[in-house]
C-alpha cells in the first residue's frame, strides 16, 4: 500500500474510510461474482452455454415464430412456433369454463370487486383498512355468492357450469380465506390446557395430514352422499371447497404452531402480569408475533393449497388445468398440449409468484428491528 501506517496519539484517532475495493463498476462486479476462481469461471462459462442453447429456441417458439392470429382449428397455425391461436379460440372457456357467455360480466365484476377490496386491504398507503376488511370479509362473500351463483333477479348459474381460471380462483380464494382462521384455531387448540380440546385438534390435524387430498376430495364427492339421508344433497363444489379448506387448515395449524412455540414464555408472562386474559393475550401479544414469524410458512401453504385446487379434476370439476386438458383432446386442436400447458403454467405462475412477492414485502414492512 502507498500510504504508510500512521500512528495517532491515544484518543485522537480519526475515523478512516474502509479499505477500497480494487475493481469497481461492472467489470469489478463480474470479476468478483462470476470469475473469482477457476472453478467459478468454468461454471459461469458452462451456464452461459446452457442459456445459449435453451433460451433462443424457447423465445423463438413462444414469441417470434408463434402464431397469434385468430382461427378455428389447428390448420390455421401456419408458422413453426407455438399455436396461440388455440388459446385465443378457447380463451373464454379457459377463463370461465362453461359459464354462460352472456353472464360472464358477473364473474368479471365479482373478481374486480375482490381485487379492489384486497388491494385496499393489502396496500399500506390506502386508508380505511377497517372498512376494507369489513367489505371483504362480511359484505363481499354475500355479494360474491349472488354474483356468481345468482339470486336477486340474476339468473342462477349452476356450479357444474363453473370452470377454468374462475373456478381455480374461487377454490383458491375460499380455501385460503378459510384455512388461515381455522388453522389458527386448531393450532391454539392443540396447545390448549384442556385435554378434550387438545385431543380433538391434534386428532383432526394428524388425521387430515395423514391422508392425501385426492382421498379427501374423493370421499367428499363419492362417499359422503352415501351417508346422507336420501334426498339430502349438497353441492359438489361446496363439498370440494370444504374439503380443500379443512385440508389446508390442518397444514396451516402446524405452521402456526411453529410460530406459537417461537414466542418466548416471558411475553405471555408479561401480558398476564398486566392483567390481560387468555383471549386478549392471544390476540394482542401472541398471534401478531407468531404469525409474523411464520409468514414464509403461511404463504408456502397458501401457494401449495392454490396449486392443489387442480386436484378437483378427479371429482369432475373443470378448473383451469382441467379445461386446458380437455381442450388439448379436441380433434380440431390435436397435438397442441404444449401450448395449453404452457398457458396454464403461466397463469399459475402469475398468481403464485404474486403471493410470494407480497409476502416478502410484508416481512420487510413488519420488521421492527427486534431481531437484532
Amino acid at each position, binding site marked *: 500500500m502507498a500510504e504508510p501506517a500512521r500512528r495517532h496519539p491515544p484518543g485522537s484517532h480519526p475515523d478512516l474510510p474502509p479499505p477500497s475495493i480494487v475493481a469497481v463498476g461492472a467489470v469489478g462486479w463480474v470479476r468478483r461474482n462470476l470469475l473469482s476462481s477457476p472453478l467459478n469461471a468454468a461454471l459461469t462459462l458452462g451456464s452461459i452455454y446452457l442459456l445459449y442453447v435453451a433460451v433462443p429456441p424457447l423465445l423463438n417458439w413462444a414469441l417470434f415464430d408463434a402464431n397469434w392470429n385468430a382461427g378455428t382449428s389447428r390448420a390455421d397455425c401456419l408458422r413453426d412456433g407455438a399455436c396461440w391461436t388455440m388459446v385465443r379460440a378457447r380463451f373464454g372457456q379457459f377463463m370461465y369454463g362453461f359459464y354462460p357467455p352472456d353472464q360472464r360480466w358477473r364473474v368479471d365484476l365479482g373478481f374486480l370487486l375482490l381485487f379492489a377490496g384486497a388491494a385496499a386491504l393489502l396496500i399500506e398507503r390506502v386508508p380505511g383498512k377497517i372498512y376494507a376488511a369489513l367489505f371483504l370479509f362480511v359484505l363481499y362473500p354475500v355479494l360474491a355468492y349472488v354474483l356468481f351463483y345468482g339470486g336477486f333477479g340474476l339468473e342462477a348459474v349452476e356450479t357444474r357450469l363453473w370452470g377454468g381460471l374462475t373456478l381455480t380462483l374461487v377454490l383458491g380464494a375460499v380455501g385460503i380465506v378459510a384455512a388461515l382462521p381455522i388453522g389458527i384455531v386448531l393450532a391454539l387448540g392443540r396447545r390448549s390446557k384442556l385435554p378434550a380440546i387438545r385431543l380433538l385438534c391434534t386428532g383432526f390435524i394428524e388425521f387430515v395430514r395423514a391422508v392425501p387430498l385426492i382421498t379427501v376430495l374423493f370421499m367428499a364427492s363419492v362417499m359422503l352422499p352415501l351417508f346422507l339421508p336420501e334426498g339430502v344433497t349438497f353441492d359438489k363444489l361446496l363439498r370440494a371447497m370444504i374439503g380443500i379448506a379443512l385440508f389446508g387448515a390442518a397444514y396451516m395449524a402446524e405452521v402456526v404452531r411453529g410460530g406459537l412455540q417461537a414466542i*418466548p414464555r*416471558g*411475553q405471555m*408472562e*408479561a*401480558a*398476564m*402480569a*398486566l*392483567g*390481560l*386474559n387468555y383471549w*386478549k393475550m392471544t390476540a*394482542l*401479544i401472541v398471534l*401478531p*408475533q407468531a404469525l*409474523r414469524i411464520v409468514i414464509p410458512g403461511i404463504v408456502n401453504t397458501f401457494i401449495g393449497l392454490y396449486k392443489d385446487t387442480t386436484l378437483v379434476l378427479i371429482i369432475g370439476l373443470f378448473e383451469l388445468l382441467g379445461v386446458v386438458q380437455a381442450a388439448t383432446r379436441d380433434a380440431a386442436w390435436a397435438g397442441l398440449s404444449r401450448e395449453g400447458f404452457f398457458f396454464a403454467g403461466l397463469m399459475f405462475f402469475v398468481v403464485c409468484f404474486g403471493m410470494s412477492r407480497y409476502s416478502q414485502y410484508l416481512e420487510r414492512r*413488519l420488521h*421492527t*428491528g*427486534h*431481531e*437484532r
Partner: protein
Amino acid sequence: MPNGTAAQEPAMRVSEEVMIEMSAVHKWFGQFHVLKDINLTVRTGERIVICGPSGSGKSTLIRCINRLEEHQRGRIVVDGIELTNDLKHIEQIRREIGMVFQQFNLFPHLTVLENLSLAPIWVRKMPRAAAEELAMQYLERVKIPEQAHKFPGQLSGGQQQRVAIARSLCMNPKVMLFDEPTSALDPEMIKEVLDVMIELARTGMTMLCVTHEMGFARTVANRVIFMDFGEIIEENEPEAFFNNPRSERTKLFLSQILHH
C-alpha cells in the same frame, strides 16, 4: 445512621394495613420442593428486598404473588383477595400488581407508547387518547419521552427496563414486583434503572424486589429477606442485616457477594 429506616422521608412510612399475606406457603416443581413454609406479611408502603443464592426460590416466591406460579399449599391473600383457581380473582389481583422482569419482556411488535397504553386500554377500558396521555406522563417520569414512537428493539437495555417499569405503572398498581431487574443489564446502565426504582420508592409504592444490588437495599428497603433452599432464613432491617447477620448461611452469602 443507626437505623436504615430512621432517616426516610414521610412518604416512605409504612402503614399498618396488610397488603400481602403469605401463610405456610409450599410449592413443588415436580419432586423438587422449591418453597418451604413461607410466611410473609407485607404492609402497604413497605419496600422489601429479597436476596439469596440462585435456585433459592426467591423468584418463585414473588411469582406466586401474581400467580405466574401456582402454590400448592398454604394461603396467599393480596389486598384482601385470596389467590385460588378462580380466574376472576387472579385477573383482579394481576391488575393491581405490576411486575418487572429480568429480561424486560417488552412487546417487540409494538412501539414504546403502544406497550404502555395496551393494558390501560384493554384491561382498564380507558379511551385511547387518555391512555396515551397517561403513557406519556410515565415516560416523562422514567425520563425517556423522546423514545415513545420507537420499537423496543431500538432501545438500550437500560431504556428498555425503564419502559418496562413505566408500562407496569400505567396500570396504577398497588404493589410492584421486581424480579432481578438489573441482572441482564450492562454495568453502565444499572444506575439509571435503580434511580427510577428509588424514585418510585419515594412515592410510597409497596415494592418487593429480588435483587443483589445491596446499595439499593440499604437505600430504600425497610426489610431485607435472605432465602436459601426454599426457606426464609433471615429477615431484618437493612443495617442490622448487613452489619450483624445472625445465621452462618447469611454471613457466607454476604461475604461472597460483598467481597469483590
